[in-house]
Every structure is written in structure tokens, then in C-alpha cells.
């Protein structure tokens, strides 16, 4: 077995192979080190809540560790990880929303109050709030493609749908998002005049 110092030189696929062969955990540790920030960002953008995102990304990495044999090598390791993280987030989000709906308590979610939607509202919160109003499929397509920079093909693999579906979801999602933001007063009229 090569020295642990050489782990950083191995590809993601080689690390998974080494993990499946039964190493001391260092190969998967390297996978975690390489992808943790990106997966955390996906989780934050998917859930919109730091606590939920933390739980989801932990669930996802533990799940990936245990089910590494489910990686068949057809897609990039990062795509496989994206899929696990996104699924963990969506599962958790659906459960949390059910609980919140039952208790009518939105206090735990980092969602902005709609009453605060005015020209001075922070753009991030405004967009986050507007994204929440979109159907899940459109929202995830926009998060992965427009916010996270995945290609249409990669996003299709992550979400388990056809590339054409992602394209149409992005297109319809952008239109819906623009309409929702306009309804909430974005862009501000003074900015529209300035940029026009």
C-alpha cells in the first residue's frame, strides 16, 4: 500500500477503489477533504438553513462512506456525491416542512419575512425567498446550474432526469423567478432607469 502522503495525488475514482478495498479510512477522508466545501455549499443553497444543511451533509457523507459500492464509476465522483447530498437535503427538507406545517412555526428556517420585501432588502434573501416559491424541480435546476455552475448534463445526472428536462426547468424557472422578483420590487425602479 502506498504511503498516505500520496493520497492527494490519487484521482477520486482511485480513492473510492482504495476505500472499497478496505483501507484505514484515509482514502475516504481525502474524498471528504476535497469535496466538503462544495457539498456544504450545495446543502446550504438547497435547504437555505445552516443547521439543516449541516445535518444533511453529515448524513450524506456517512451514507456515501457506507454505500461507496453503489458508485458504479459511470459518472464523476463529485456528481455521485452531489446526488447523495441533494437527495439527503430534499428528504430532510420535506420532513422538516411537514413538521413546520403542522406546528405552523417557521421560526427555525432562515427564510425572510415577506413583509420585509422592499427595495432595500438584501438581494440574497430576496432571491432565496423567491426561489422558495418555485416548484422543487425548477428550484433545484437553477441552484445546480445557475448558482452552483454544474453543466446541464451533470445536473441531469444529479437529479436523475433527462438533460432536456433540466434545460426546460431552467428556462421556466428563470422566467418564474424573474416574475416573482418583479412582483417583489426587484430590480428597484431607480436601478432599472440607471441601467436602461
Amino acid at each position, binding site marked *: 500500500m502506498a504511503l*498516505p*502522503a500520496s*493520497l*492527494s495525488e490519487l484521482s477520486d475514482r482511485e480513492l473510492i477503489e482504495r476505500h472499497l478495498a*478496505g483501507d*484505514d*479510512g*484515509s482514502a*475516504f*477522508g481525502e474524498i*471528504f*477533504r*476535497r*469535496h*466538503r*466545501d*462544495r*457539498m*456544504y*455549499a450545495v446543502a*446550504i*443553497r438547497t435547504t437555505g438553513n445552516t443547521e439543516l444543511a*449541516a*445535518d444533511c*451533509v*453529515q*448524513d450524506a*457523507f*456517512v*451514507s456515501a*462512506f*457506507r454505500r461507496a459500492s453503489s458508485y458504479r464509476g459511470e459518472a464523476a465522483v*463529485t456528481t455521485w456525491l452531489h446526488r447523495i447530498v441533494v437527495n439527503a437535503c430534499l428528504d430532510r427538507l420535506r420532513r422538516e416542512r411537514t413538521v413546520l406545517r403542522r406546528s405552523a412555526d417557521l421560526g427555525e428556517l432562515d427564510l425572510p419575512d415577506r413583509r420585509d420585501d422592499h427595495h432595500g432588502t438584501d*438581494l*440574497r434573501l430576496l*432571491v432565496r425567498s423567491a426561489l422558495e416559491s418555485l416548484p422543487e424541480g425548477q428550484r433545484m435546476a*437553477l441552484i445546480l446550474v*445557475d*448558482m*452552483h*455552475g*454544474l453543466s446541464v448534463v451533470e445536473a441531469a445526472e444529479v437529479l436523475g432526469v433527462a438533460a432536456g428536462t433540466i434545460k426546460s426547468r*431552467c428556462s421556466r*424557472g*428563470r*422566467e418564474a*423567478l*424573474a416574475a416573482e*422578483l418583479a412582483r417583489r420590487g426587484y430590480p428597484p425602479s431607480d436601478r432599472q432607469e440607471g441601467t436602461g
Partner: protein
Amino acid sequence: MTTPPEAPHDEDDPTGMRQVLHSLPDPGPMPPDLVARITAALEAERRDTVVIPLIQRPRRVWPRYAAAAAVASVALAGGLAVINVLQHGSADSMTAGATIQAESTTGGQQDQAASSPKAPVASGSNATRDTAYSEAAQTSVHMSNRSYAAQTLALQAAATVANPGPTTLPLVGESPSVGPIATPIGARDCASALGVPTSSAVVADLGTAEGEAVALIVATDEGGARTAYLVKRSCHSGHPGIIAGPVALAAS
């Protein structure tokens, strides 16, 4: 990987929303406390895998291997922590490693105590603290990852009770993929859901059945009669999740 993606082209997006979404700030790197938490969870997963082969050794030599496993676990956890720091210079990795090392030491002591199968380990702690801990003291939890089957449950359960292997370490119950049943209190809670009286001793073993994660629960009443159940790992008060059993085991 935190490199921002290439700025999108707007030709195919007359709404301008792609540019708006792309311009939003990155959430930033994973916080160090979360890195440490996940590192510890992954370490717990790895350690579960490492101890499995030791359980299948002949019973006669078991105590010697239990001691070796405890020492190896401590050394490996410490070694990994050092490797983490050497590779990444990460203080949080070292913190996580040190935590695991402390847990491993505790677990090792439990492992040695568990080598006598007729004396369930007081892994809960002080028996006078409260009822829950008193019941937990009569409960031992193991993780053999054995493959159980409903048809052979009685035989397999008897074999597990005779040679249960090391108890689980405290951190294992923290793993979301294993859950509270990996702790004495969680296993006792499951036993209560099965109708096992609090006076009975309980041995729980985490394994699989037809590829699914399950737990074997063996209750021994005050008269020495033993009953086995195969349950889902989600088994808890009010939701036993019985897969097979109850099955009476032959007297030992």
C-alpha cells in the same frame, strides 16, 4: 473545491436571472466544527468495520484479541489524527482525532469487560443515577454485522449471546446511519417496545438481514429463559419494527 464556476453567458437567458443567481455570494467553506463532527462520524463508521473480523475468532482466545483490538483502535485513531495534521495541517482534524482516541480508550475497557458473555456490561454507567441508567446497566450492545435470517434466528441468536464480541463505542450511537439503538438506553427502549420487562437483561447486536440493517435483541428473564427478536434499527418505544420473533432459545 471552492473555485467559482465560469460566469454564465446571457445569450440564452433574456430574463437575466442566470446572472443574478450566479452573482450571489458563495456560502463559504464548511465550518471547522462541522468538519470535526463529520470526521468523527466517519471515523466511527471506519472503526465499526475494523473490529468485525475479531468477533469471528474462536471463543477461547477472544480475551486476548479484545485487548489487542482495544490497543489497535487507540493506536489507529491516534495515528489517523497525526496523519490528518501532517497532511492538512488542520487543527480541527486533530481535535476530532483526540476525541475519538478518548472514546476508544473507554470502549476498550468495555471490550475487555465484555469478554465474559454471562455478565452483561454495565455500559450505561452509574446504576444508582436513575431508572433508565439502571436498566441500561443490564443491557449490552454489540455490532457484529452478522447476517441474520428469520429461519435460523434461534441458532444464530444463541451463538451471538455465547460470543457477543465487543460492545459498541459511545460515539457509534451518534452516527445517523446507526442511531440510538447502538446505545444501551436506546436498546433498552427498543426492548421495552417489544414488551421485555425491565427486570430482564438485554443483549443487542447490530447486524443485517437480507441486506437490510437490523438489530438482534435477546432478552434473558430472571429465570434464565431467553427470547430473541429481529427488529429494524429504528426500533424504539411504540414502534418495535419486528422482522422476526419472538423465538425462545434453548437453555444454556
